C-alpha cells in the first residue's frame, strides 16, 4: 500500500477534477552498488543515491502542504521509496511509503492511473528521482533493477518514453512529468541488445485527447543530473523554488503555468550551475501554458557574481526592498544566491578596495543575476 494522502483510498475524490500524484524516489538498489550480494551484470557501477529519497520526500511535502489550485485541488499522493520509510503527514499521522520495486511501483501506478482516468479536468503529476539512462528511450531504474537471476534483466525498469506515450489514453487532460534522473547513455547499455523497460501504460489508440503532456527533465539529453550528498537533488530544489513563486506570473493572484515553469526552471538551474560551478542542465520544453498552481506570492532568485576573485572575497551585498533589508557580509560564500520578493529593490555591492555598485530595479520572476563590475 503506497497511498500517502488521503489516509484512505475511500476518501479520494474521483468525481471532480483533482491533482493525483505518483512520487518515486530510489536511493538504494538491490543489484547496484558496492558489495551487493547479486550485482547486476551490467551498469553495476551505479552507486546508491543519497539525494533522491530526500527529493521525493520534499515533493510529497510540497504537494500536501503548498500546492494550491481551487479548480483542481489535491486529490491523492502515491509514494514509493527505496529504502521504504515511515513518513509523517501534515496532520502528524504516520504512513508507510511503498517500496520502489517494480511490483509495488506497478501497483501504485495502476492506482494512480485509475484515479487520473476518472475526470478530464484532473492533473496527472508524476515525479521520479533515481538512476536513469537514455538510449532508444528514457529508462528509469527501480530498486530491483538488474537482477541477474531474472531471464530479462531489464525487467524492473520503467520505459518512461513508452509510459508517457501510453498515458495519452488516460482521461486527465493535463499530465506533468518530472524526471529527476540522468539522461546519459552508458556504453554498457548501448552495447546491450534491445535495451527496454516496462511502459506501465499502453494500448492507446491513434486518438490523443490529452490537452497537455509535458516532461521536465533534470538533465539535457546525454547529460547527468546531480545533487549535494544527503540533500535534495538540485533539480528538486529548483523545482520547489519555481513552484513557490519563481515560476509564477501575473496577473494577480500569482500563478504558475506549465510554460512559465519551463522558462523558470531553465533560468534557476542556470544560476545554480553558476553558483555551484557544476555542469547542471535541464530540458524543459515550452508548450501550451496551463495554469496549475497559485503560490501565495511570486519570488525572484537573485544571484551576485564577481569576475575577480579578490572582489568576490571583499564583496558585501545588501538588498533593500522597502523596510526589508537582506545582508550578506564580506567573507560569506560566493557567488551568492538567494530568493527575494518581486518588486522594486535596491541592490548595493560594496568592497574594501573596489568601487561600489548600486542597482535600482523592478525585480520580476524568475531570476535577477547581477554581475560585477
Amino acid at each position: 500500500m503506497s497511498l500517502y494522502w488521503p489516509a484512505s483510498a475511500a476518501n479520494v475524490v474521483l468525481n471532480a477534477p483533482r491533482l493525483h500524484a505518483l512520487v518515486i524516489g530510489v536511493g538504494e538498489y538491490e543489484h547496484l552498488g558496492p558489495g551487493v550480494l547479486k550485482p547486476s551484470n551490467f551498469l553495476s557501477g551505479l552507486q546508491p543515491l543519497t539525494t533522491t529519497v530526500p527529493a521525493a520526500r520534499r515533493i510529497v511535502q510540497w504537494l500536501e502542504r503548498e500546492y494550491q489550485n481551487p479548480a483542481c485541488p489535491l486529490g491523492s499522493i502515491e509514494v514509493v521509496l527505496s529504502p521504504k520509510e515511515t513518513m509523517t503527514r501534515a496532520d502528524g499521522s504516520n504512513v508507510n511509503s511503498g517500496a520502489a520495486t517494480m511490483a509495488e511501483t506497478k501497483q501504485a501506478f495502476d492506482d494512480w492511473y485509475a484515479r487520473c482516468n476518472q475526470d478530464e479536468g484532473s492533473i496527472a503529476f508524476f515525479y521520479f528521482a533515481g538512476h536513469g539512462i537514455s538510449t532508444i528511450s528514457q529508462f528509469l531504474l527501480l530498486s530491483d533493477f538488474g537482477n541477474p537471476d531474472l531471464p530479462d534483466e531489464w525487467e524492473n525498469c520503467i520505459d518512461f518514453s513508452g509510459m508517457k506515450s501510453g498515458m495519452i489514453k488516460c482521461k486527465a487532460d493535463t499530465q506533468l512529468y518530472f524526471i529527476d534522473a540522468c539522461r546519459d547513455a552508458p556504453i554498457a547499455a548501448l552495447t546491450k541488445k534491445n535495451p527496454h523497460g516496462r511502459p506501465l501504460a499502453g494500448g492507446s489508440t491513434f486518438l490523443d485527447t490529452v490537452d497537455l503532456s509535458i516532461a521536465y527533465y533534470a538533465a539535457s539529453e546525454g547529460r547527468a543530473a546531480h545533487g549535494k550528498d544527503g540533500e535534495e537533488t538540485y533539480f528538486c530544489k529548483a523545482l520547489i523554488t519555481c513552484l513557490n513563486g519563481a515560476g509564477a506570473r501575473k496577473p494577480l493572484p500569482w500563478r504558475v503555468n506549465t510554460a512559465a515553469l519551463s522558462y523558470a526552471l531553465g533560468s534557476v538551474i542556470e544560476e545554480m550551475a553558476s553558483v555551484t560551478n557544476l555542469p547542471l542542465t535541464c530540458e524543459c520544453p515550452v508548450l501550451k501554458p496551463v495554469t496549475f498552481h497559485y503560490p501565495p506570492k511570486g519570488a525572484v532568485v537573485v544571484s551576485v557574481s564577481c569576475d575577480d576573485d579578490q572582489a568576490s572575497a571583499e564583496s558585501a551585498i545588501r538588498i533593500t526592498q522597502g523596510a526589508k533589508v537582506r545582508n550578506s557580509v564580506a567573507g560569506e560564500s560566493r557567488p551568492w544566491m538567494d530568493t527575494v520578493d518581486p518588486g522594486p529593490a535596491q541592490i548595493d555591492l560594496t568592497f574594501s578596495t573596489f568601487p561600489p555598485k548600486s542597482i535600482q530595479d523592478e525585480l520580476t520572476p524568475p531570476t535577477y543575476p547581477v554581475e560585477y563590475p
Partner: protein
Amino acid sequence: MPIVFVHGVNNRLGPSYDAGVKLKADALKSCFAGATINGKSFANVGEIGFPYWGDLAASFAWNMASLPRGEMQALSGNADPAMLPYLAMIHDAVPGSVTGEPILALAKRDFSNAVELIASLALDQSTDDLIEEIAEFAASAQAYAKANPRPAWLANVTTDDALIGQLGLAIKAPTPVETLGLGKVIDALGGIATRLKSAATGLMGTTLDRAGDFASTKILAANREALNATLGRFFGDVFIYFNSRGDAAQPGPIGQRVLAGIDKAVQAAPPGEPLVIVGHSLGGVITFDLLSHFRPLEVDLFVSVGSQVAHFEEMKLFKNSDKAKPPGKAVTPKNILHWINIYDEVDIFSYAAKPVFDRVDVDARYDTKTYVIKAHGAYFEQTRFYERLRARIDAL
C-alpha cells in the same frame, strides 16, 4: 627535485601519452619521496621533467604500408588489433578463458593482475576529456588491489562489466556532490571491456579458430601485425636517433631536446638534491649516450628500464664505446654514480646490463605479468613497479 624521465620509442603525443605522463609523475613523486641517494635527500617532491622527443622520431611516408598486413588480418579475423595483446595476456594467464568473460576469468585467478590489465587498457584507450581521471583510476585501482588481493565482492560478480563497475565503486573517493549516473571513467571502461569481448569473438570467427583452439601460437600470429608495427617503429626511432645524434660540439635534435629537459630540471631544483634520470627503452640508450659523451653531467642515479644499453654497447654503437673489446667489461662512465637496470624476460626489447658493464649497482628482473608486446610498455603503468624500484633505491 631533479628527476627526469626520458621516454622511449613509440611515444607520440595524445591522450594516452598524457595519461601515462600523469600516472608516471604521480607515481615517481611517491616513489622518491624521502629517498636518500649518495647521502643527498629530496627536500621536496617537485615537478618531474618529461622531455618529449617523439615529434623528432621516425615517421613513415606510406604509413607502414610495407608491413605484410594481409596475412595477419586474415589470421585475426574481425578482431580489434588494439585488444589482441590483452587477449594474449589473459590467454597466457588463464588458458581458454578469452571467449567468456575474459577479464573476470583473470580476476578470479589473479585479481591484482586483472586490475593491472584494466589499468593498462584504460591508459591505452584514454581520451582527451578523461586524461586525469584515467591516470587517477589506474593508480587508485592498483592501490586497492594491493590492499585487497581478493575482495569479498569478487565472488558475486559474473561479468566483466560488473567487475569493472564494482571495482569503480570500491575505489570511488567520497565527493560532496553525487551524480545520478555511472561516471565517465567506469562508462568508458565498460565500453573497452565490450571491445575486448568483441575482439575475442572476432578471433573465434576465423576459420582457424572455429575449432575453439586458442593456442598461444595462434594468438601470437594474430598479434604479428601489432608486433611488426612496434618493431618497425622501434628500429625507426633507433635509426633516427643514431643517424642524427651529432657530436658533443653539436648534439642532434633529440639529444638537444633531452639535454634541455635535464638542464631545466637541474636549474629548477634546490641545491644539494640528487639528480635522478630514468630512461625507458631507447630513452635509456639516449641518456647513456648523452652522459657518456655529450654531457658528462654527474648523475646520482641512472635508472634504465626495459632498455638496450648493454645490447648497444655490445655492438659498440655509443659515441664513447671502446671499439676494441676491453679484456673485462665495458667501463661505466664515472659520472654515473649509481645505476639500476630493470628488465622483464618477456620484454623482447629489454636487456641485462651487469654482464657487459663493470659497475651496475642493480640488474633486476621485474615480471610485468604481461605478454610479449605489452611487456615493453607495462613497467610504468604498474604501481608495484615503483614500489620495487624504491626498495632497490633504499638498498643502494
